[in-house]
């Protein structure tokens, strides 16, 4: 059930053309009042505008089976694995987590992804994806109770996984249902043990859904931690407020910026009021021009 990749370039080109058209229109007017802002760069909502970077997928279509089969991939299905009983040394860890780690380690050595393996001409990175770690799907009760049976199961797993990743040509992305984990201490430790931590907060069901500030977006993106590897500094971007938008064919992450405040609370007489008071004025000189609203100064 993987989404189909967008292999043709037309989609990317469409976006590029759109963007170019928008840009050329705007530059024709020069600013009269806010002329100091003329020379500032235009507000870029998305950090990399429409450059072809990474992979694009169409969630409405499924990936073709031929494509799936042509690629080498491994899966870990818990129930199949549990039926084996390989020799396991005394691991002070939940059995399921231990199995997963063993499976990963086996694949790493099978595929020759260890850093110490001899160089081959083409080295791909082993990409590992783990979904909903810490949820009851993995047999963990960290999401169910405030005081789980083994509070260190998740952190121990992550530590060993970190060791495996550091020793091999692999990268791993894990999703954790943080909103279900009641024990915040565990989330703090998980963050410390990870290189990069990104949180997605959806507006659905929260009070932010009706907040006019967020009306264009579907949720916020929180970057809690970025990797600081092999260097004293890390590449921190300028902006910290990011929001995401989910359209039919696009999931974009943009900078959250405030549009100008054009709400009714700003004291500005509407056209109707002006017309009303003008009528009153012309009818009689002595009459006081009492419009429908008070005119604020």
């Amino acid at each position, binding site marked *: 059930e993987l989404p189909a990749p967008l292999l043709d370039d037309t989609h990317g080109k469409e976006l590029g053309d759109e963007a170019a058209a928008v840009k050329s229109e705007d530059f024709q007017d020069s600013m009269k009042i806010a002329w100091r802002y003329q020379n500032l760069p235009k507000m870029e909502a998305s950090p990399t505008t429409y450059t072809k970077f990474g992979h694009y997928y169409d969630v409405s279509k499924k990936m073709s089976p031929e494509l799936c089969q042509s690629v080498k991939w491994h899966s870990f299905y818990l129930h199949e694995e549990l039926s084996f009983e390989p020799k396991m040394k005394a691991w002070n860890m939940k059995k399921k987590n231990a199995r997963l780690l063993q499976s990963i380690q086996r694949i790493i050595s099978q595929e020759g992804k260890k850093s110490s393996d001899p160089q081959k001409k083409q080295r791909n990175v082993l990409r590992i994806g783990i979904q909903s770690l810490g949820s009851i799907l993995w047999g963990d009760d960290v999401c169910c109770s405030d005081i789980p049976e083994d509070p260190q199961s998740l952190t121990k797993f992550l530590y060993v996984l970190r060791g495996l990743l*550091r020793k091999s040509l692999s990268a791993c992305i894990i999703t954790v249902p943080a909103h279900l984990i009641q024990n915040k201490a565990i989330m703090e430790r998980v963050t410390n043990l990870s290189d990069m931590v990104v949180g997605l907060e959806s507006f659905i069901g929260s009070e932010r859904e009706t907040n006019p500030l967020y009306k264009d977006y579907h949720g916020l993106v929180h970057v809690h931690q970025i990797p600081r590897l*092999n260097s*004293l500094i890390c590449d921190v971007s300028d902006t910290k407020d990011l929001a995401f938008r989910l359209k039919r064919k696009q999931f974009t992450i943009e900078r959250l910026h405030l549009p100008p405040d054009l709400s009714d609370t700003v004291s500005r007489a509407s056209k109707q009021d002006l017309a009303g008071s003008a009528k009153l004025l012309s009818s009689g000189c002595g009459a006081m021009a009492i419009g429908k609203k008070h005119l604020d100064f």
Partner: protein
Amino acid sequence: QGKFTLLRDTRTDGSFLVHHFLSFYLRAGCKVCFVALLQSFSHYSIVAQKLGVSLAAAKERGQLVFLEGLKSCLDLLFGEEEQPGQPSPLQFLSGSSCDLRALFEFVRASLTPSGRDSCTGPVLLVDDLGVLLSLGAAPVAVLDFIHYCRVCVCCQLQGNVVVLVHSNEDSEDEENELVVNSLCHHSDLILWAEGLATGFCKDVHGQIKIIKRLSLRQAAEQDVVQIYQYKIQDRNVTFFARGLSAAVL
């Protein structure tokens, strides 16, 4: 000599202090035992090279004893049967013992002078202590381990101990806060790196509070607190008085 330094960070990453102390002590010719629990050897090696020190060379000449926690853990769990008489320092992971005695023995063995050493005072450096809690060690075991290390390294061998911990004001991690508070009380020097209270800033990465705990040794003395702000660069960290960042002047 004989000092316990606590490196503490809140809302930011204080690991730049670890890199600093590592290269500082190696350059001074001290024998260093580095218990690196969170990152690989190559990470520290690359940063140390930027700071002008070669970790590989130090290791080869015996000046640096490097315990790579991640690697030890993998060896313990995936490796073959361990040789008798050479227990893994991270023994507590396999559940056979719930204290950190094996780790302490490792530290003691690496820092006890063997006669051929021409190094000055030994130094124990730990990055970072909170990982031991995440791996299942009890807070009491961690505090015991630090206590034993202090007695051995600071008192008996007249060396220094430098430990990094993370903390947070509104942290719900009670075990970690317990360990951190206890260590604060027993430290001679605390270097506390914090993110700015006003939020993220490109030119000032944080502030550092230097607390000299004179009250620890002398009853009537007051602790001396100094606060600076800092900016981390590729090969260097610049410190300046508050509000006097180069970007502002």
